[in-house]
């Protein structure tokens, strides 16, 4: 095939054809694009996630803005070549600030027929489709129900198809490597990465260094992968199949040092930083669970920071050990996903009662029950808010992007340590595995989280005896109780799950005391709102009549939808919540300013329900539970309809579920 292949969405007037001369005498065009969305899809064993991550790293170091969406099955190795085994990685990169991994790919790379069948529906007509023709064998075609080979039967005419024998070219390139055929074939993902690196002018040194590092102990494997990677790059440069390469200039970003970071990594670093800034040892008690396990893996690498990681026998022991460590003066942390939060509920209640700092990280996934372990959802909000027996208020904090997981983790630790309370940090699978460029913060600019342990008696007994320690004598401002760690002489005290008498913390079944303590625990959590900054409202025109409010990982799609709306000449205000409990003190007044308020969520309207209950505002819920993030274009259409329908809320307050 020859000719220009459309890819990406060229910016109006942004296309800038240049001509380059490749070795081998071919003259190739270079087309400038402002943004591209690439999706790599293959079998779970094809290394698509690794390939995607490497392409992401190259893209990040090149200086594009980017956002990623890994999408993989829960099965580690579903039967080869089948639809359930398809794993994909989508990357959106641009020469400007972007907010989502892209609604649909411009370029789809499929490593087998199953990957084609599972992903073609998302590739818009005219999009570039690169397929590994070696894998389109009768056997593989039959596995997914293709009667004829779509690469040859004309059914793909609506797309720009480039069929490339990626597997055999990889094995050819490695024929002298001494590797067997099977082993050599495993490098086809690196061949593909090389080809894409050529197509998009990605730097290659990072990948070579990475492969050398990764296979330090198997130099022959490192050499083979590097050879395959280079062969793919050279193939792009010399083949007639690809006449054009693309250039996406670096995105303008605020000055500073950047790196690429995933949500789980940023969250882990935030917890390490919280330990350093508080001076307290970090203790993580955790049980492996998708998609939170990477936090356990990451934190277990940072023992030099005094981080202890304990892989417990179950979710309950994970949080129990963390709470025990908190009693001893550590920053206790437990990490899990929704099913684990359910198991931890009783211990969270104990932490509420004993008023000890504890951070519970819930990386949400599709539910209920085991649900969709590798897919994203926001359906644990009400579990986080209310999923305990008794009146057991817990602060809830949510990050909005992968990099923001760092700040959200520090904020969760701040609240836990300041108010002596368990805090739930609600991340999700999309944030956890997604990645973006992150401005590396200056360590000295991070919040000071130092705490003061109580070391002296703080009151007198009921009979007037001086020099007593009253473990439930509260700070008048924060209502936090004193934190006296075991080992401190003279402050011995007992805490537990039974109701506490005010001040002394002794067991009390007194009716009036219980009423007082229940209200006090609630007032302590409500009072956190006083420490929160004013809510930011993004309304550049200042005349919006419709506001959209979200929380968590919907920030990117909602923000991108708002940009589209504003580009169309309409106004919309965006509010995105970091603190879900307590809600910011100014939120009710802000929402009351707008004629209509829309709340998009990846659940069936949980935050909308809370907002309606708290503020008596007719919040309109727009929901989707597909296990994937919202598409910006679809959200924009929903919001535009609300704006164009005018001030009066039309009909039912709930849209949704249809996306």
């Amino acid at each position: 095939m020859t000719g220009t292949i459309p890819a990406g969405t060229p910016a109006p007037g942004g296309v800038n054809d240049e001509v380059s001369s490749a070795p081998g005498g071919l003259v190739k065009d270079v087309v400038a694009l402002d943004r591209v969305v690439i999706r790599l899809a293959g079998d779970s064993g094809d290394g698509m996630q690794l390939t995607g991550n490497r392409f992401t790293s190259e893209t990040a170091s090149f200086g594009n803005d980017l956002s990623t969406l890994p999408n993989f099955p829960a099965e580690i190795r579903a039967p080869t070549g089948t639809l359930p085994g398809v794993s994909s990685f989508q990357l959106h990169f641009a020469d400007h600030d972007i907010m989502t991994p892209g609604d649909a790919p411009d370029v789809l790379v499929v490593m087998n027929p199953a990957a084609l069948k599972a992903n073609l529906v998302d590739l818009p007509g005219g999009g570039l489709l690169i397929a590994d023709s070696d894998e389109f064998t009768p056997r593989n075609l039959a596995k997914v129900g293709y009667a004829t080979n779509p690469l040859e039967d004309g059914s793909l005419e609506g797309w720009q198809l480039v069929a490339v024998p990626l597997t055999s070219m990889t094995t050819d390139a490695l024929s002298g490597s001494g590797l067997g055929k099977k082993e050599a074939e495993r490098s086809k993902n690196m061949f593909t990465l090389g080809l894409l690196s050529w197509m998009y002018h990605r730097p290659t040194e990072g990948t070579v260094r990475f492969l050398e590092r990764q296979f330090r102990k198997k130099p022959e494997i490192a050499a083979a992968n590097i050879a395959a990677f280079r062969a793919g790059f050279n193939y792009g440069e010399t083949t007639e199949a690809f006449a054009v390469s693309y250039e996406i200039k670096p995105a303008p970003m605020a000055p500073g040092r950047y790196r690429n970071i995933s949500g789980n990594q940023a969250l882990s670093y935030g917890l390490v930083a919280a330990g350093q800034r508080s001076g307290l040892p970090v203790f993580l008690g955790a049980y492996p669970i998708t998609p939170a396990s990477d936090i356990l893996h990451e934190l277990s690498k940072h023992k030099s920071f005094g981080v202890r990681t304990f892989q417990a026998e179950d979710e309950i022991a994970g949080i129990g050990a963390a709470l025990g460590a908190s009693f001893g003066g550590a920053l206790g942390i437990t990490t899990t996903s929704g099913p684990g939060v359910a198991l931890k509920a009783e211990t969270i209640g104990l932490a509420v009662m004993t008023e000890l700092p504890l951070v519970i990280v819930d990386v949400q996934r599709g539910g209920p029950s085991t649900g969709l372990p590798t897919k994203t959802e926001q359906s644990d909000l009400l579990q986080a808010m209310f999923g305990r027996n008794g009146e057991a208020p817990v602060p809830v904090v949510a990050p909005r992007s992968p990099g923001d997981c760092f700040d959200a983790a520090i904020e969760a630790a701040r609240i836990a340590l300041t108010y002596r309370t368990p805090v739930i940090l609600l991340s999700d699978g999309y944030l956890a595995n997604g990645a973006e460029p992150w401005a590396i913060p200056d360590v000295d600019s991070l919040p000071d989280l130092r705490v003061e342990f109580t070391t002296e008696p703080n009151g007198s007994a009921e009979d007037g005896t001086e020099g007593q320690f009253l473990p439930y004598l509260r700070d008048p401002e924060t209502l936090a109780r004193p934190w006296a760690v075991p080992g401190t002489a003279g402050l011995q005290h007992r805490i537990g799950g039974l109701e506490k008498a005010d001040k002394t913390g002794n067991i009390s079944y007194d009716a009036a005391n219980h009423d007082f303590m229940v209200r006090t625990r609630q007032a302590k959590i409500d009072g956190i709102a006083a420490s929160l900054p004013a809510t930011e409202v993004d309304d550049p025109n200042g005349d919006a009549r419709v506001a959209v409010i979200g929380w968590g990982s919907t920030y990117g799609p909602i923000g991108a939808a708002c940009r589209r709306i504003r580009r169309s000449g309409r106004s919309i205000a965006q509010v995105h919540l970091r603190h879900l409990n307590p809600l910011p003190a100014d939120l009710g007044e802000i929402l009351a300013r707008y004629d209509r308020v829309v709340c998009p969520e990846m659940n069936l309207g949980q935050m909308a329900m809370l907002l309606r209950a708290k503020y008596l505002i007719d919040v309109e819920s727009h929901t989707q539970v597909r296990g994937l993030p919202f598409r910006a274009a679809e959200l924009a259409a929903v919001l535009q309809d609300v704006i164009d329908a005018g001030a009066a809320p039309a009909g039912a307050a709930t849209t949704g579920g249809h996306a």
Partner: protein
Amino acid sequence: MTTLPDPLLSHPDPTAGHVHDLGMPAADPIAAAVAAGGDKQTALKAKDFKTDQEVRWCPGCGDYVILNAVQSFLPSLGIAREDMVIVSGIGCSSRFPYYMNTYGMHSIHGRAPAIATGLAASRPDLSVWVVTGDGDALSIGGNHLIHTLRRNVNLTILLFNNRIYGLTKGQYSPTSEIGKVTKSTPMGSLDHPFNPISLALGADATFVGRAMDSDRKGLTEVLRQAAEHQGTSLVEIYQNCNIFNDGAFDLLKDPATGAQWSIPLVHGQPLVFGPDGGACVVRDEFGGLRIAETNQVDAAQIVVHDAHREDPSYAFALSRLSHQDLRYTPMGVFRSVQKPVYERMMADQLEDARAEQPADLGALLSGNDNWVVA
């Protein structure tokens, strides 16, 4: 437990002894708080371990006897009250921490070993105890118990076994004998009971002992060894619930029958018991143990108790001598062996990691692949 190196001392404040402010970060805040608390008093009496809280067990409960025994023997360990933490779960026995003038947490049902593990793992300087019961430890908390035992966390676990649920008013427990008629089993329970000693040995517990609530001397001796053991110690204490299971252990307590059916375990001594030493323990043909009449066997055949055997199968065989009806019940220390202690190994890994690469938060956040936008 009492002789562990103090981690707070193993990280001396590098600024100590300097006259000038070197601008060093403050020392560990936990160590600072402990130091600010002042001198540690270790010359204590039993009454120093009592609290002002009214003890609220039923009159006549075996728990009173155990509480008194513990308070009486603790001063001999030389542990300051503030360095001791008692963690309990839910049940009658789990009220124990409220009556001890130490740090304590009365937690939730079955979870005390998990909570204590986190505390002990992060604070090796403390003496951490767990007080639990047969329902708490073996039913709802069975998982935590076995995993704590296999990890060998430095904990002393006191398991009050009264073979009944007391606080919920009289249902059968995982140690109740088959056929037990209770409120929830009017036609008799169907469950085969756990033998807590066998269970602990199956989990490779490094210290396992058994004592009787009313036997102050025997209980104190087992508790002392348990407290001095490095690693997890499990002590099963037969405890009489005079309300819902009164007389459960009378066969062993009654002077008329106790000597006949109790097998005292003394390290290095032959296992001879019964009135006039008429019974003994010998090896059977399958490598296990059996009861024999002393005058029917050669003295050389009588097993000499060795609590330090590395292989737990001997101690396990001892634990299998007893029946549900309590005949042939060994009392004392079944097993006491040395193995690496969990929190020590954890602390060592932290030390090793620090030695390899000192903590540098700025470097961590920057990572290896970063770029500058001017």
